Every structure is written in C-alpha cells, then in structure tokens.
C-alpha cells in the first residue's frame, strides 16, 4: 500500500500537464450535475465518441504514419456486430429478450473491439507493401466495401432498413437518458485515452514512431516493421470497434449511412486539425470541431445550407496542410516531419525499400 508521501510525490511529478488533465477530467465528471439540458449532454457525448475515435486513428496516422482513409470500417464492425448479435441472432433467432442479456453489452464492448482489431490486421495486411497514396486508396476501398456490403446484405444487416439496438443496461439499471449515457462514454473515453497513452509511451510507441520517421532504419534496428504496422492497425481499430458498439447502443440504431466515407475523412480531419503524433492533439481537434459542428447543427442557416460544413472542412484541411501541418496543438516535432525532405532518394534506396517491403 503506497504511503501518503509517495502518492504526494507522484502527484508532484505529474507537473502542470498532469494537473491540467486531472482538472479537466474532474470538470467533465461533474458537468452533468450542472448541465441539465439533454441537448448539451448529447453534444458532449458525441464529442467524446469522436475524441476516442480520433485518438485511435492517431495511432495509425499520427504515430505510425499510415494514412488510413477507411477507419470508419472498424467503427462499423463494432456497431454491426453488437446489433446483429443482439437482434438478429438472439432476439429473432433464439427469441431471447434483450433485457435478459444486458450484460452482453459490456462483453460486446470488448469483443467488438477485438473483432475490429482482427479486421484491422486483415485490412492492413495488403497495404504493407504500398506507398502512401496507394495505401490510402486501398484503405478507402476497404471502408467503402464494408459499407456497400452492409447496405446490401439484407439477410444479415437488414440493409438500408438498419437494425434497432437496445440501450445499455446493468441488471435493470438502464442507461437510457442523456446523463447516464454521458457518464458511460466519459468513463470509456478516459479509459481509452489512458490505454493509448500507456502503449505510446513504451517500446511499442517508439517502434511506431521509428517506422514513421524512417522505415528502412527502423527495420535495420531490429524492428519487424510489417508486424508493427499490423499491430498499429489492430490497436487503432480496437478503439474504433469499441466506439462502434457504444454508438450502436447509444443511437439505438445502426444504419449504413452512419458509416460513410465522409466519416473516415472527418476523423482524419480531426487528427490533422488538432495535431498528429501527440496525445492531446486529436483530443483537442475532436473537441473543437465536433462541438462546433453539433452546436451549429440546429441553426437554421446550417440546416438550409448543409454544404457549409463541407466547405469549411475542405478549406480547413487544405489550409492546415499548407500553413500549419503540425496542427493546432502539434509540437514542433511533428511540424518538422512535414517539412521538405532534403535527402534525394537514390534509385537504389527506393529499390531497397521495395525489397524490404516485399518480404
């Protein structure tokens, strides 16, 4: 049992950054007691979902340097898995009432994440040999294929009708209202970010960053790059899967239109906006953008002109890349990663990378 003084020492060690985090978490926890309106709580809930999604994607895009444009696929895997299991399998097929298997929700959070992880490894595998743009397109293709399948495989996914999903519950205590759902997602978000930070700050995070910085050197230093890239996809996908499960139960519905390409691009935008390759960037990006987006959703002008959001997002992406590629909160470190590469790659070196990648 750690002594009081050692705990105090730990707290002191955390410094400003740690204090800020603790304060923010405390505020977040207390918020629903102060705020009553469902609208605001809903907004915050959605923000938190995207916080986790952006953080998970950051592993792949920000830390490992792989542009994944199909991240929404993992989100869909989680969501559809739980929906199909609850409704299609248990209710329709076995006649099991939802309230009897409430505990399944919690289990599904984990299983959904694992399934998404596996999907991540599967989707990631063919991309191992590919260069930046091809990799992006391939991940995009996978994401779209999953959406199209979801939309057309009526027998399993009920296609465009979607599947309605029950609220999460704990033995009768149903997480039905905005406040309870908010606390639930807050817990999940804090846990997720915590897990991600632990993984990043280890030899694994170092390996990922090394791969991003110089794949050949990383391989030469004993990092099995193929394996770590797959790991990156898998770990990143895990969080999307978990969020997918939550989202399905939160919205009480899954539908292919929730998993469009635009969502993937949105998620990438959040990471880019906030700052890639550090932990707090994507969180900031998500909080900023999604808050704005959801807040403006009810405005008449926005409702009449939905394209404004798209224009803003497109403009932000272009502007960010041209003016401030490290994102709003990116440390100088990532900014420098975006600067011109002055070393002129010789043909031999290019061949070397190709050879390494093909094995």
């Amino acid at each position: 049992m750690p002594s009081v003084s050692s705990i105090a020492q730990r707290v002191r060690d955390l410094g400003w950054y740690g204090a800020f985090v603790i304060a923010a978490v405390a505020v977040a926890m207390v918020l629903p007691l102060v705020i009553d309106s469902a609208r605001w709580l809903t907004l915050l809930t959605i923000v938190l979902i995207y916080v986790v999604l952006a953080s998970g994607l950051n592993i792949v895009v920000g830390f490992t340097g792989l542009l994944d444009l199909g991240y929404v696929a993992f989100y869909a895997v989680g969501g559809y898995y739980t929906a199909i299991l609850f409704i299609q399998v248990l209710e329709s097929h076995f006649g099991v009432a939802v309230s009897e298997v409430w505990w399944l929700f919690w289990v599904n959070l984990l299983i959904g994440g694992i399934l998404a992880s596996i999907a991540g490894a599967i989707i990631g595998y063919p991309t191992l040999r590919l260069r930046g743009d091809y990799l992006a397109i391939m991940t995009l293709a996978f994401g779209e294929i999953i959406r199209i399948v979801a939309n057309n495989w009526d027998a399993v996914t009920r296609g465009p009708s979607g599947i309605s999903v029950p609220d999460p519950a704990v033995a009768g205590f149903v997480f039905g209202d905005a406040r309870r759902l908010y606390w639930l997602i807050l817990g999940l978000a804090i846990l997720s970010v915590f897990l991600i930070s632990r993984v990043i700050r280890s030899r694994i995070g170092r390996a990922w960053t090394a791969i991003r910085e110089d794949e050949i050197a990383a391989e030469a230093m004993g990092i099995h790059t193929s394996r770590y890239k797959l790991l990156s996809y898998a770990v990143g996908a895990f969080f999307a899967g978990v969020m997918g499960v939550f989202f399905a139960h939160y919205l009480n519905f899954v539908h292919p239109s929730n998993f469009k390409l635009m969502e993937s691009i949105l998620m990438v935008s959040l990471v880019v906006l906030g700052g890639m390759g550090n932990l707090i960037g994507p969180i900031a990006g998500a909080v900023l953008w999604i808050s704005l987006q959801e807040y403006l959703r009810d405005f008449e002008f926005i409702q009449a002109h939905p394209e404004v959001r798209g224009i803003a997002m497109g403009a932000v992406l272009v502007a960010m890349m041209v003016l401030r590629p490290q994102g709003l909160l990116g440390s100088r470190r990532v900014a420098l990663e975006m600067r011109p590469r002055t070393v002129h790659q010789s043909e031999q070196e290019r061949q070397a990378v190709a050879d390494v990648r093909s094995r």
Partner: protein
Amino acid sequence: MAVLEVTGLSKSFGGLTAVNDVDFHVDEQEIVGLIGPNGAGKTTFFNVITGVYEPSEGKIEFLGTSIAGRLPSQVTKLGIARTFQNIRLFNDMTALENVMVGQHCRMKTNVFSAILRTPRALREEERVRDKALALLEYVGLKGHAGELAMNLPYGSQRRLEIARAMATDPQLLFLDEPAAGMNPQETEDLMRLIRRIRDEGMTIILIEHDMRLVMGISDRIVVLDHGEKIAEGSPDVVRQDPKVIEAYLGHAVEA
C-alpha cells in the same frame, strides 16, 4: 574463427550486376576495410548481407548460421548492426530515444505489459534507458540526450548513429562511410572510437573513402571494383597493388 563467411555472393538488379561472385570473411575482432571506387558495389554488398536485399546467388554465414535472405530485423537480432551512408536517424526523436530504439529487439515488453506497466516492464525500460545514456556518453554525446536528432551537428549525428547501432548489442558492426563529411580532427576522434569499440570485443567492417582512416585502422582491406573483389590483404600490400591503383586512377581518367 570466422565471424562472417561469405561465399560466391552475387546480386543483380534486372540487367545490372552490382555484386559479382564475391568471397569474403571476417575474423573475430578484426577491422576489415572495404574500399573501391564509387559504384563498385560496396554499399550493395552491405545491403545484401544485412538483409535489405536478397542475394541472387551465394552463401552468407554469420557465426555458423546462414543469414542469406533473412529480413533485416532478423539479421539485426542475430547480431549484426549497421550505420548508413546517408545518415538515417529518426529525426523527430531525441538522441536518447534514437538509441533506445536500438535496444528494441532486446526487449520483451509487449502491448499488454506496456499497458499494465508491470514491474518487469518498468525495470526493462529503466535498464534500456540507462544503457542508452551510457552509450551516448561512450560516443561522446553526453548531455545531448534530450536533443532532437535533426538538431544535432553533422559529426554528432554520425556518432549518434553508431551509438544507436551499438544499442542492438551486435557482435558485428557494419559502418558505411562513417567519416564522410568529417574534418581531420573529427576523423581522428572517430578512429579512436572505432579502435576502442574493437578493443572491447567488437568485429568491424567498414566502408570508407577516407584513405588515411581506412589504411590507418584496418587490419585487412578488401577492394571491390565493378562488383568484383580485385584485391585483398594488409593495407601496405593493397596500397601498392597495381590493380587497385589502376581501378582508382582508371576511374578518374574515365570521368
């Protein structure tokens, strides 16, 4: 006892033969210099042995195990480390982090132990950190641990690469033009460092164009030209070998 035994090694890229039927060996704690005019195939040779390329033909045995065709990460794990001709540091990471990456293949922490911060994982991390700091001091970069690799002066970057390579706990060290771009004083320091590394048990192969360095430090020299071995022997012997002279001069005249 030969640490590295290469027999009949060839490597072709499409129509171009970069390395042609080369035999090569290194004994324990030897320093072997690999020289030859530009384009002779020296770096390609390195790349084939360290696994970056697959050999077209030939055998490569390291400490009795065949390593031909293995992935570079596997080769490193078996005990061969290298530096690069065009410095390939992890620019956005600190000097310390760069060296710590070198220890990657000697660590066991996985995703789960990282998340849980098991005592073993923490101990391992600390051990690695200490070792990295020690290596930085060893190559003369003490105090620069927290600096980003890209911000270091050129000479320091070269030494950082050596520290990083050594962090993989190798038994054989490949240095690819470690003195490129260095001034005489830096080259002098480098010579001392390399000698010290060897004296403490390492076997070293080095590619270099700086003749003073190579001749001064190597026990034995191998000369490549157009992918073929044209001479081998002690520095004095090689220096006077007419074929070697012609290779260098011949190239100069052609150009």
